[in-house]
């Protein structure tokens, strides 16, 4: 296992001295997890492996942009893997768009003063919170993250009224906010 602090140290080692051993440690921890995550959305093992490798290569390239005060390593990796999955889908179905566009969205430049979400704490609390969601809420959250489906599509799939899905999402996110606001000023 790799703690959040250890993972952040490894990313910083890549940024400061192109540390290949650090990269290998990150790869061993995260590549199989990203692969499993992508496969839950229905991708085959080969496609999922490719997304995971592309995501880890992006970690290498962009290591200097990682800011441990803003996001945990797992959170940062999630955003990268999501973007790689979008690229992958668009390459298959739609013309590609530049991944860089997505990465700039939360670049440090818009950090301003609101670093109120302390990355490590947020991440730990979110992990605790996941265990506390009801089965109904968890299904909707997992379908969104794993299968990248909009709430409208999820409602159709679950044969539920749109309002019901919206309220489950809002309840789940309300718990997320309540749990985290204890950490925020």
């Amino acid at each position, binding site marked *: 296992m790799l703690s959040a602090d250890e993972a952040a140290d490894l990313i910083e080692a890549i940024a400061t001295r192109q540390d290949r051993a650090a990269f290998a440690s990150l790869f061993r921890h995260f590549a199989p997890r990203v692969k499993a995550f992508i496969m839950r959305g229905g991708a085959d093992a080969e496609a999922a492996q490719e997304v995971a490798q592309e995501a880890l290569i992006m970690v290498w390239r962009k290591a200097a942009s990682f800011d441990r005060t803003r996001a945990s390593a797992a959170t940062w990796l999630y955003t990268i893997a999501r973007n790689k999955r979008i690229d992958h889908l668009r390459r298959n179905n739609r013309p*590609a768009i530049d991944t860089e566009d997505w990465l700039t969205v939360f670049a440090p430049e818009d950090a301003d003063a609101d670093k109120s979400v302390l990355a490590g704490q947020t991440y730990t609390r979110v992990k605790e919170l996941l265990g506390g969601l009801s089965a109904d809420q968890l299904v909707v959250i997992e379908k969104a993250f794993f299968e*990248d489906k909009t709430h409208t599509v999820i409602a159709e799939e679950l044969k539920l009224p749109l309002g019901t899905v919206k309220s489950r999402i809002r309840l789940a996110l309300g718990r997320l*906010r309540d749990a985290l606001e204890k950490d925020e000023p």
Partner: protein
Amino acid sequence: MSRHPAPEELLLDYVAGALPAGPSLAVALHVSLDPHSRRMVERLNALGGALIEREPAAEVAVGDDDAALERTLARLGEISVERRPTPGARLSAAFDWAPAPLVPHLRPGMGWRRVLGKFDEIRLDLPGDFHRVSLLRLEAGRGLPQHKHSGYEYTVVLQGGYTDETGNYGVGDFAVGPGSVRHEPIADQGEPCIAMIVVEQPIVLTGPVGRWLNPLVSRGLI
């Protein structure tokens, strides 16, 4: 805090990567201007991180992971670690109102085009998206022609503000709804109102004169 934030379920769609490029860009612009929604997006990203971390490693044949690592390590030789990007790379003063996520979509030669003598437009081309994505500029006190849409409409204000039947919208505010409701936004006093509008095509003009222009709109000429 924004008076009109994006609905939370739409922020979830955005963070999950489920939105088409047009609506996704609209949400990205809103999030970049609205600290409240940005915090929610950071929490949602952390939820994504926790879901990845919770994943057991994918079952693979012994040795497969090592082989994948070796292949990846071999590729690193030709890929350099990029330097930290320097913030503040902006376009010309003509686009000084553009938030960061919009900048990659703007080009120096882009200019406002007068439409129907009423407002200015820059059409953005987001490959692979069926939405019509436009930047609109309205002089203070001027209104958009009364219109409705057959699909959803997403609006985010980038400069100035406007008022319609549903309320008053300032910089960073977000509006989303079925466009089937007729509406007639009027720009507030002060600097011109600039907004990004994303609509599922087509737009239907509903005013007495506008109705006659619909064939041009449906052909994308207006």
